[in-house]
């Protein structure tokens, strides 16, 4: 057993989650530092990082939800549709002639997410229908409903909302000087705070609560989870519920960032969320994954996009190709790591 020595100990000491997580963080750091030293320009300013966060707070939230579903061994491709539906409904409500209030619009967002979660969770967990098909139908439904609610895209003029949208929170100690020598503090939007709170909350839930542990157990091996006395159906239901509610919150954050409703909002967001989760080390087979990894997955994905667009390669096709190449790379890493590990355990 001990003959294989070093190699075996590396692979067995780090568990799957931590191994994949460290790969992701290292790749992100290398990429970002590379961007700073090679590309320079905007990347040297801290605001660049915060801009990436500002633009992608919604993606972080939806990716976290998706990670939980994927850890439990399912998939949900309806999140992009839910985001579009939420922003459209909130936009229509806030722009209604009687004027809408912010708290009610937040309730609308949560309500849509909750309704989606209950229906999809019930179909997947209690009727044993494939999650892919259920959420496929969910995506169709959300996209269709968005155009039924309102066809034309429009900006929201509600004053309370615009004030909330433009709220900027300065980051203490970070900032940069413009060419004229004026100090501009770095800022984040409210959505980023929401996203980071959710990341922390989910990290705690996944790590230290019974529910979080049962997600891993069900995703790892359904049969043995059942034998351990875990309510598999309820766990699956909960994972879809959380994912859809997070999609609802993500939808509101997205809406807060763009300030408009349109049927074409968040197109392809589900695929970006899945890609981020995978890059962040969530295994598709279930049972392995980490919320912090997902956060770094989103950051890596968006940094690549930022690098591509600032490098002057902004012919639209480059983004698609680089993201796909990165996804491919990480899938291969995952696959190779798992095969190696299995070999290491066998010998």
């Amino acid at each position: 057993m001990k003959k294989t020595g070093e190699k075996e100990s590396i692979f067995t000491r780090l568990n799957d989650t931590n191994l994949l997580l460290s790969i992701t963080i290292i790749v992100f750091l290398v990429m970002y530092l590379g961007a700073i030293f090679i590309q320079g320009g905007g990347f040297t300013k801290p605001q660049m990082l915060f801009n990436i966060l500002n633009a992608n707070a919604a993606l972080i939230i939806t990716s976290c939800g998706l990670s939980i579903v994927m850890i439990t061994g399912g998939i949900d491709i309806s999140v992009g549709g839910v985001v579009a539906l939420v922003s459209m409904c909130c936009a229509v409500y806030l722009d209604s002639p009687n004027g809408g209030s912010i708290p009610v619009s937040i309730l609308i967002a949560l309500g849509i997410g909750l309704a989606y979660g209950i229906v999809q969770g019930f179909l997947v967990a209690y009727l044993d229908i494939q999650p892919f098909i259920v959420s496929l139908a969910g995506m169709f439904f959300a996209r269709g409903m968005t155009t039924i609610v309102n066809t034309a895209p429009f900006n929201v003029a509600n004053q309370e909302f615009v004030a909330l949208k433009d709220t900027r929170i300065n980051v203490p100690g970070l900032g940069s000087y413009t060419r004229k020598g004026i100090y501009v503090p770095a800022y984040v939007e409210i959505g980023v705070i929401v996203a980071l709170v959710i990341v922390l909350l989910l990290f705690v839930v996944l790590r230290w609560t019974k529910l979080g542990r049962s997600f891993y157990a069900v995703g790892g091996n359904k049969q043995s989870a059942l034998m351990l006395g875990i309510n598999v159906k309820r766990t699956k239901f909960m994972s879809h519920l959380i994912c859809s509610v997070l999609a609802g919150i993500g939808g509101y954050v997205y809406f807060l960032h763009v300030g408009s409703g349109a049927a074409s909002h968040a197109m392809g967001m589900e695929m970006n969320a899945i890609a981020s989760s995978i890059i962040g080390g969530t295994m598709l087979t279930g049972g392995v994954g980490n919320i912090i990894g997902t956060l770094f997955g989103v950051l890596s994905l968006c940094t690549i996009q930022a690098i591509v667009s600032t490098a002057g390669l902004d012919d639209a096709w480059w983004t698609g190709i680089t993201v796909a190449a990165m996804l491919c790379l990480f899938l291969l890493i995952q696959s190779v790591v798992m095969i190696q590990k299995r070999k290491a355990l066998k010998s």
Partner: protein
Amino acid sequence: MKKQNIIIRAVSNQLFIPIIALVILTIINLIHDPSFFRPTLVVNNAGNVVLSGSLITILDFGSELAILAIGMTLVTAASGGQDISVGATIAIAGSAMLRVICGGVARPSENAHSVLLAFFVACLVGAACGLFNGTLVAVFKVQPMIATLILFTAGRSIAAWINHNELPIVPDPKFGYFGGVIPGIPIPTTVFIALGCIIVIALLLKFTNLGLYTQAVGINEKSARLNGINPIAMKILAFVILGLCVAIAALIKVSRLSTINYSVIAKDIEMDAILAVALGGNALSGGKFNMWASILGAYIIQYLTTTLYTLNVQSDALAAYKAVVVIILVVFSAPTVRDGCGKLIKKLSPARKEAA
């Protein structure tokens, strides 16, 4: 007693759901507008006499879906997953085809190469995409949906890159025959292309072990290997066949317009193709399949789309109605619901007997 058996047997038949869907759609159309079923002869823009009407539309626009459904059924059966990159690979294959025909010039005055050569290149490209997906799935054991996510993300970008983001227009009007009509024949050419593909796959399933081996791999990979079937080769083969289907569908799609729009061509067709397989009552988790049910499913989806259009549903809102139909379908085909229904029928039948 005999009557009850017939009911149970009919309900458990794989073709039950597609046929019920067909009947319901037909009833809706009969009530709404019976002229739906009456094909008429009209003269089209080019001066040819062609058949027209909703039924012809279904056969015409359902053909690429039916062709894709053939490949998708094999992939589903062999790998237990679905290929979501077909729309994007149609864009790649179509783009390659245009590059060969137009020779890299946006507005050529004549074809640089023959259509046959272009189609051959498209087939190669389609097969190469299939090989890529198949290798990831079979060798690297990546889930099919995620492996194909790569081409799904990159496909349309690659397609744009092949033609340097230009939209070449094929000068030769004969190229339009594949997606339109050949002068003198009133039926759309696509119907014949689809028929050809169906005949080829029927012969393949009849005279080779393709069907049997694919099902064996899908049901139990390990025991298939122990019986001397190479599961890796079978999975890759399924993806390559789907790649060829994609190339044929790309020919039809590009020919309809004589040009290409990278972001719109064959958009969401992967979803329709997967639905066709599901609608045909095939298990999406792989294993046994029924090719005819899938093909029927493809035409039913086109039937549904055309029906919704005649009911004046907006094209953007179409997705919501389709989603409702899909949910109803999957709920009824879910094993738990089926068991429940079976018990219900059994409970009801003795009561009926007593009443009689």
